[in-house]
């Protein structure tokens, strides 16, 4: 008996590491009238479904794949956002 769990993983550049993409977005905002916005960082959002017996088991697998593949620990942090179980 397994269930399908949906996870969302948010990968972002480590704080302090230059984020040229975020900077480009930020520098285009004043032209649109948002001169009051700063600290823009651009990351990556990954959604995935995991078949597993328990949520803890599924989450452990997501932790591992997020650290081994979805993110590079040298430059990125990741956060597992939320989970939702759907019987399958």
């Amino acid at each position, binding site marked *: 008996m397994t269930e399908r769990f949906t996870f969302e993983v948010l990968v972002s*550049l480590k704080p302090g*590491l*230059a984020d*040229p*993409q975020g900077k*480009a977005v930020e520098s285009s905002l004043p032209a649109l009238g948002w001169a009051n916005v700063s600290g823009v960082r651009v990351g990556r959002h990954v959604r995935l479904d995991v078949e597993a017996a328990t949520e803890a088991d599924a989450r452990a697998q997501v932790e591992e794949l997020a650290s081994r*593949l*979805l993110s*590079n620990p*040298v*430059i990125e942090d990741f956060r597992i956002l939320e989970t939702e179980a759907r019987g399958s």
Partner: protein
Amino acid sequence: MSSSGGPRVGVVTFPGSLDDRDALRAVETMGGVGVALWHADRDLQGVDAVILPGGFSYGDYLRCGAIARFAPVMEQVARFAERGGPVLGICNGFQILCESGLLHGAMIRNRSLRFICRDVWLRVETSQTPITADLTPGETVQVPIKHGEGQWVATPEQLARVEGDGLVVFRYASEDGVVDDAHNPNGAANAIAGIRNDRGNVIGLMPHPEHAVDPDVGPTGGQPMFASLLASAMAHT
């Protein structure tokens, strides 16, 4: 491929590799034997050195080199490197070696956010590698770069090790060897263009020596690197 008796240098083609042909051609031009290897191979065909070429392996999805790192051939490349075999990663190949953990650091987008394609000068920082044995520290060589994500960065601990242990192989510089911000095309930490591992047999660099061996089409800074690589491949045989 030619049947000359030179050292055999394998060049791995991943789906999305672009510079594999030029790398094979550079090997042959400099007197070696080019051996085409495939990402799904589980055997390096007894080559004496391995090149991971430039390009966009697996579309560069996720991160440059992130998926190529798990290709079957990479297990063999890691084993070959452990035995002291010369491994050279160029551009995307450098990114793959970083993702594999065979070299320190990682690559992020150029600070200009632009793809850069032009000739640059590199200052040689060490002759203790298979590609710089014929070069003298302080000397400069000209080769092209062509990358959008070539800004090498590292954790403070890694950067301290890379600098402290003499692992920097090349820095971006002026023709006369001045390293400053104006000559750093992509914003790389300490203007680092190429590094090596502790043992010195694994090297990665963003610039393209394989595009710089033929005087008819551009600079020739790649010639001494390929000459060195062939000599050390011969020694490794």
